[in-house]
């Protein structure tokens, strides 16, 4: 378990081994811990061989979509006609998720090393690491680490730059992030063209998440077979994953487990379970954009892409939000809807209007002014917000609303019938 807790014996510590160890932040300290050996090895390899190794490992994107990383790299043009770019998505903003922040603040060189290896694999000369504006501490740590690594000239002919965001959740969407690097409003782009064809500055681009890239040096160093062997359930999900556990939990923090690990053990054993006298009510297992699980579903859930889908949700970014019996699900779902309304870039009508009206209707219910037909209205709205827009922000707002009404309908009804006192003013 990452800082500030000690690792739990059931964890598989790979990425989080040096969380909380300030010496690992320095170049010297990182080298002493075996750092940059993988980069040296990768730079001596053919780029296609590096990609093949990552492909064989089964590593899938840790930002939320779970797309196979090595396969993504193969989408870059075989014949290089101009500059290639690598963008690193460090715009971690998905409510419930705080793993990339810990990777950057404790093991900045792990990210830099992974970034350089990926840049080599896709034959990019320049990599931009896009760090969200609010991450002041990771920014400082990364700036220092990059200066030290540059001074030691470890990156060969690859140049890494840090680019600071300025407060926009949507910039975590890959094409919005590229627009943001280009000095534009962070509006997602219509695909195709896909980034590997025309990405940042119109050039072939690959974009990877921080946690994905931090795993790459381990794969190069220890081999794809080792990584692939880290698997407790579905063979389609390999390696370790950081789960950020937060909300109503005794010991919040990042837990690193092998794919396929039971969610209930993470909650009850590793994170100390519920507060005294409280019981589990619900859990969002993969960041706020995924369906909410009930207690029963949570206790059956295995943490890999397939296991969480089977339980009725998505692995997403691995942000585990725990709600105990004191949580007001209606109010919390309204807060999530408000989050998406605030963060909508407002390009697509379904999203701009849908997120705002969902929030307003939820607020009306919480103010005791709701009607039973509002629940059907919310579901209808949500359906019209799903699968109809340029990016998935709209879908992400609809998801907790749909699963919330389906699984916690009586809590909504209690506000409408007056059984529960209003908590908001209309």
């Amino acid at each position, binding site marked *: 378990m990452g800082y500030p807790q000690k690792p739990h014996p059931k964890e598989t510590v790979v990425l989080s081994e040096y969380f909380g160890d300030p010496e690992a932040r320095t170049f010297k300290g990182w080298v002493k811990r075996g750092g940059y050996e993988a980069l040296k090895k990768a730079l001596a390899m053919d780029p296609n061989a590096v990609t093949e190794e990552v492909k064989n490992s089964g590593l899938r994107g840790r930002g939320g979509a779970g797309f196979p990383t090595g396969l993504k790299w193969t989408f870059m043009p075989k014949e290089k006609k101009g*500059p290639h770019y690598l963008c690193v998505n460090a715009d*971690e*903003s*998905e*409510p*419930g*998720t*705080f793993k*990339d*922040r810990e990777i950057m603040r404790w093991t900045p060189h792990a990210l830099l090393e992974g970034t350089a290896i990926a840049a080599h694999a896709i034959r990019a000369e*320049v990599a931009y690491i896009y760090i*969200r*504006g*609010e*991450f*002041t*501490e990771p920014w400082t740590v990364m700036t220092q680490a990059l200066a030290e690594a540059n001074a030691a000239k470890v990156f060969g002919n690859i140049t890494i*730059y840090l*680019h*600071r*965001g*300025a*407060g*926009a*959740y949507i910039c975590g969407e890959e094409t919005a992030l590229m627009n*943001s*690097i*280009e*000095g*534009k*409003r*962070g509006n997602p782009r219509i695909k195709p063209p896909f980034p590997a064809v025309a990405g940042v*500055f119109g*050039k072939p681009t690959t974009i990877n998440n921080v946690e994905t890239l931090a795993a790459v040096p381990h794969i190069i160093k220890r081999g794809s077979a080792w990584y692939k062997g880290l698997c407790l359930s579905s063979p389609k999900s390999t390696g370790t994953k950081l789960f*950020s*556990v*937060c*909300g*109503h939990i005794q010991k*919040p*923090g*990042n837990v690193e487990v092998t794919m396929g690990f039971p969610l209930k053990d993470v909650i009850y054993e590793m994170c100390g379970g519920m507060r005294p006298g409280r019981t589990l009510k619900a859990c969002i297992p993969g960041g*706020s954009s995924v369906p909410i699980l009930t207690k029963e579903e949570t206790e059956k859930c295995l943490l890999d892409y397939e296991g969480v889908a089977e339980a009725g949700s998505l692995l997403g970014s691995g*942000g585990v*939000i725990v*709600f105990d019996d004191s*949580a007001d699900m209606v*109010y*919390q779902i309204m*807060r*999530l809807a*408000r*989050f998406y309304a*605030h*963060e909508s*870039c407002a390009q697509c009508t379904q999203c701009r209007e849908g997120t705002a009206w969902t929030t307003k209707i939820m607020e009306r219910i919480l103010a005791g002014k709701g009607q039973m037909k509002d629940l059907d209205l919310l579901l209808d709205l949500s359906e019209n917000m799903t699968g109809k827009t340029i990016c998935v922000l709209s879908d992400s707002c609809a998801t907790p609303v749909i699963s919330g009404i389906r699984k916690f309908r009586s809590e909504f009804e209690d506000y409408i019938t007056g059984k529960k006192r209003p908590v908001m003013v209309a």
Partner: protein
Amino acid sequence: MSAAHAAEAEPYQPVFVGKTLDRLNEIIARYPAKQGALLPALWLVQEARGWISDDAMAEVATVLDTTAAHVKGVVTFYTMYHQHPVGKNFVQVCTTSCCNICGAEDVVKALLEETGAKELGATSPDGKWTVIEVECLGACGFPTPILVNDDFIENVTPEKVPELVRKYR
């Protein structure tokens, strides 16, 4: 603002001179197109002036060969750029779900009270404090995280607020 008032206002002093211009030029070189330096340039303006005025946007447009309209479009898109002066201590409190269920709204109340800002987005009478609610700060395991200017502070509770405010006052 009346016309007479505007006429009395001091002439605009450019941000991008001397060392700041050198820093900008070093940043411009990182991107194949000058406009790539727009977000960093706006950060430099905010660092120097505390906020980004229309005059500053026009200056940024000139140095990056773009239009003031494009710059304004970008400034208004990103929530961390201030389009108005704010208190000396700008406080951002996360109140999204994960922090919300751990008592973030009580932290907001305590901060508004203790700083004298009273209302969200308002600046305290002494000009020292502006407190706003923000969506997820990405530190959900350390509720409630707040940003005081560039200082990221974890695990803030209403009980810790008086001491924290004293430190920055």
